[in-house]
């Protein structure tokens, strides 16, 4: 397909603004790693480094910075900062883990979600960060260590077959299932993100996503929380995957607050209808908050 994003004209109330935003470069954002520094101290270190910054508004730990190389500053060297897309902070915020929780991050590399979850846990409790790719795991480990994480256990497996055996067979309180996807929402950062796009690929990756979400639900305790997210707009990888989980497992979609401008999840697409509760999921389009694109749904496992 020459123009995959044209598929979304019927579901967008401001299609022109959406397309225009997709053409603009993305603001550079860092998250303050509160395991190693307070926001106040990180801001002071940025000032000393001559880097301008501005809070993004909805989350105190996220700062838009006026350099495209935040890695070349003292606060980064000390692991006080993590460079990431603003919307990639959404799943950990929605997961909202407490210190002492057991938390599962099945598609963890390169580590923005893992390090964010650990910070929200005050580095207390068990955080299992899994990935299937050895090279990406190496990036995950070095990011986790630079950020000073000590509560993280790193595993290498296909998340669809994740085993609890190394952890005494005990399930998790929460999971953040941020799956590999067609990445349409990263178009502002990677202008070639859609070069290889095809509906076959979308359908193929959706099958993997269903398997990963199913396994995460299975290893989460009754009453636990599972957050499902992607950085794509494709309903086949978003609502359809969650709809499949709702049909296969004893889980429900729950409402959640997020101080960003969002649109409700879809309940129908391309002739398919989805569970009515999918309107509790949230879609984030680039033009709404000047960010990348994102999808996030919060599920609760039946008690």
């Amino acid at each position, binding site marked *: 397909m020459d123009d995959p994003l044209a598929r979304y004209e019927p579901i967008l109330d401001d299609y022109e603004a959406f397309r225009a935003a997709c053409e603009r470069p993305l603001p550079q954002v860092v998250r303050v790693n509160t395991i190693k520094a307070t926001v106040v101290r990180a801001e002071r270190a940025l000032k000393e480094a001559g880097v301008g910054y501005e809070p993004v508004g909805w989350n105190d730990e996220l700062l838009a910075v006026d350099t495209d190389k935040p890695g070349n500053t003292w606060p980064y060297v000390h692991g006080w900062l993590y460079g990431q897309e603003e919307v990639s902070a959404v799943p950990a915020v929605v997961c909202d883990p407490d210190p002492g929780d057991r938390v599962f991050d099945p598609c963890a590399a390169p580590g923005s979600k893992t390090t964010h979850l650990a910070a929200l846990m005050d580095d207390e409790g*068990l955080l299992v960060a899994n990935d299937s790719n050895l090279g990406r795991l190496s990036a995950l480990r070095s990011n986790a260590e630079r950020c000073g994480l000590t509560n993280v256990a790193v595993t290498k497996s296909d998340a669809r077959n994740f085993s609890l055996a190394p952890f005494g067979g005990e399930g998790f309180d929460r999971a953040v299932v941020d799956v590999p996807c067609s990445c349409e929402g990263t178009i502002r950062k990677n202008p070639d993100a859609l070069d290889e796009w095809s509906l076959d690929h979308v359908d193929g990756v959706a099958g993997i996503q269903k398997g990963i979400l199913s396994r995460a639900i299975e290893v989460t305790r009754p009453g636990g929380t599972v957050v499902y997210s992607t950085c794509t707009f494709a309903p086949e990888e978003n609502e359809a995957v969650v709809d499949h989980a709702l049909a296969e497992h004893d889980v429900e979609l729950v409402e959640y607050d997020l101080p960003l401008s969002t649109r409700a999840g879809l309940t129908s697409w391309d002739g398919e209808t989805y569970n009515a509760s999918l309107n509790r999921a949230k879609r984030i389009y680039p033009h709404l908050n000047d960010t990348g694109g994102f999808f996030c749904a919060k599920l609760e496992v039946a008690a």
Partner: protein
Amino acid sequence: MRENDGQQFGRLPATDDDREVEGRPSRAAVVDFWQDRYGIPTATWDDYTFWERGAGKLWAFRGDVPSPARIQGLGMAVLRTGGEHWKPTTNAVQRFGGLATDCVIELNDAEARAFLAGRDQELPRWNGDWGYLIASHELAGESEPIGVGLYLHGELRSQVPKGRQREL
């Protein structure tokens, strides 16, 4: 005694008397090392278990899992005990070095930059112990540890790993 298996994490024995794997240091020895050399309080490690994966490479994990653990990472690599002297990792020093009261050398801005870039430098003003020191500098109003330096004969040799070195 078993030999160390480099593919898995094995929990450190509580004391030398509990040792089952040859040459593996005890938890007590590790906690004492941080206290004796750097003055890092033993209570710092109350919630931690210590593990070996790879001969002489020790990890600190805030929590516990069944041992041995055949996984890729468990907490943070904190110490190398293979050489003549035990050597803290850069990451351990950045995370826990702020608690140290001994063997901390304060660097000025130019010295800190040279240290981060991986350069050795003459620093004859140091009159404390030789060996592995915590190199620190002032950042945002407080002293902040950067990494480990080897101090010998008036010279501080930066031990910052190549992948972490930077010219700021």
